[in-house]
């Protein structure tokens, strides 16, 4: 469903991503690991099409279509949705108004999800303004439920979230991924997919991962079984993985 081919990206003239190759299969959850500064967030932001992430070469293919030069809203319309690491303060924009503005006939039941995420009392608040870390994540998930994308790009959904909320957020993500897809109707298969960045792997307690990648210094250094990868990273850090697996790619 998503294919990133030989992607080279610059930010302000500096190469941040170098020949990245990665695939997310339909209905699957792909996990992106990698040390701080590796370029994980940059990859997600580039896939979504944010400005400042300058694609020098390579391609982003979504559902068979080359979307490399599409605008952000066009990508959103085709079914990409993102939870960024640091969303901006949206002074004056009330969460309720935003959710209503995003909502279409494809939307999930946002009222129910707002209730479940305990976000009802935030509906009159300005989006992200003064939100705590966990509140930001929950507000992002609520917005995503209104958007109902086919590919979820999730940047560290569990970071800054307390242990109780992690369960709520993890379960909600799993639910969103399992809900009816606006891109694919195949009752035997999950329609929605995800590309998830995680350091701790906590979100994987609630969402079953299918594939894992490790990004280092702007390039993919390993591809493999995500749970084993996580185990390895936890016990040996990234150094080992890079050294051991380089030859296998």
């Amino acid at each position, binding site marked *: 469903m998503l294919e990133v081919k030989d992607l080279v990206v610059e930010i302000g003239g500096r190469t941040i991503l170098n020949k990245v190759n990665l695939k997310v299969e339909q209905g699957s959850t792909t996990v992106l690991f990698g040390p701080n500064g590796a370029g994980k967030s940059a990859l997600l932001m580039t896939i979504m099409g944010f400005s400042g992430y300058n694609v020098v070469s390579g391609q982003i293919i979504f559902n068979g279509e080359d979307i490399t030069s599409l605008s952000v809203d066009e990508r959103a319309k085709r079914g990409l949705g993102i939870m960024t690491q640091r969303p901006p303060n949206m002074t*004056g924009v009330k969460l309720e108004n935003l959710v209503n503005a995003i909502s279409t006939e494809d939307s999930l039941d946002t009222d129910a999800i707002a209730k479940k995420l305990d976000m009802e009392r935030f509906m009159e608040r300005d989006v992200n303004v003064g939100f705590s870390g966990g509140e930001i994540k929950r507000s992002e998930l609520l917005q995503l439920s209104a958007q109902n994308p086919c590919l979820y790009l999730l940047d560290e959904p569990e970071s800054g979230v307390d242990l109780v909320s992690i369960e709520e957020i993890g379960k909600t993500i799993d639910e969103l991924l399992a809900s009816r897809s606006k891109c694919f109707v195949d009752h035997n298969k999950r329609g929605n997919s995800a590309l998830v960045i995680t350091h701790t792997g906590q979100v994987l307690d609630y969402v079953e991962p299918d594939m894992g990648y490790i990004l280092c210094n702007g390039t993919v250094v390993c591809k493999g079984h995500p749970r084993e990868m996580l185990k390895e990273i936890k016990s040996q850090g990234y150094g080992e993985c890079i050294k051991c697996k380089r030859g296998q790619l």
Partner: protein
Amino acid sequence: MQTGTALKEKAEKAITKVAMYGEDFDLNEFEVGTREVPLTDDLEDLDSDLKQTLVNVGVLPDEKDRSGSFLMLDNAISHSSISDPDIELMSLHEAMEKHDWLEDYSWKLVSVDADKYTAKSYLENANGYFIRAPAGKKSSMPVQTCLVMGHKDATQTVHNILIVEEDAQLDVITGCTTKKGVERAMHLGISEIYVKKGGVLNFTMIHNWAEDIGVRPRTAIHLEEGATFVNNYILLKPVRSIQSYPTAILAGEGAFARFHTIAVAHPGSELDLGSRVLFNAPNTKAELVSRTITTGGKITARGEMVANELHSKGHLECHGLVLSNKGTQRAIPILEANVDDVELTHEAAVGRIAKEQVEYLMARGLSEENAVGMIVRGFLDVGITGLPEELAADIDKTIAQIGKDAI
């Protein structure tokens, strides 16, 4: 007390006195607005163009949910009616005849020789509205007043006095505008507002002019102990020049004033909008919030707070959005403390819409136009409530257009 002759002399001396701010208009280029205006028993009887003009400044011809209505056309009163027996509404001239004591309120907060515009208004014996909420009375619905300029190349001079007596409460919506086809004219408006002990006045003013109109309001508000004054000012349509700098005098302990200003400067518009608060009693509070947008015009957003007594507390916020390369935004906050133990703060920012914000919304599927519109709407939302639906719809349309033009 100053006699009429003394005031007249002062005014005559000031008739060419250039105002401190704003473009200097030569008032001799304009005719004196007519006092021969048609009387209207029922606002519904006005022609449909004029009715729409009223609606666009929040004045409802059907008077639904209004406790009274007042319409001034050029320099005379066309309509005045009040359904709330507790509230007094009439022309100022009529009120001056009725109440001897009103002398003590006239030309007391605004001086006749402040500049040529006040002088002109005095010398012309300007008429306007008089509204009074007697002690302890609360108007359940707002009084609406409308000042309309009906003739090209003419001046309209207005003198209003509002009095909210002890523990009374009053809401006023006032719309100032021009008839269709009146492109060039001059509006001068004196407003003297008194809110007495424990009184509350919510005052909402909507301006809607045309490309070549000059506007010079001169307003002062006197607040006694525990009094509250909330001022909302909305200007979203083109105009040539507006310069106004209303002053609230917090004269009694615990008095509170809030000014909300939302304004858009279109290409060719020059807006010089400020508000000033004098904290002349202990424990007084004020909030000055201004949100301005330029789509090509010039804006100066002023705000001034002068703390003269202990425990004064004020916050001033001037935010300006620049949506065009040709526009100018200036924010000029002034804070002055003349005693210790006061808290005056300000926050000023001018700039364009952050791309990051636009893309955040676009990533949720909104088009760039809708994203900008949503941000602009949010920017201008300072929580003004109670606007009539028709006006809110018109405001929405204007904002959507601004969003469209911005990209």
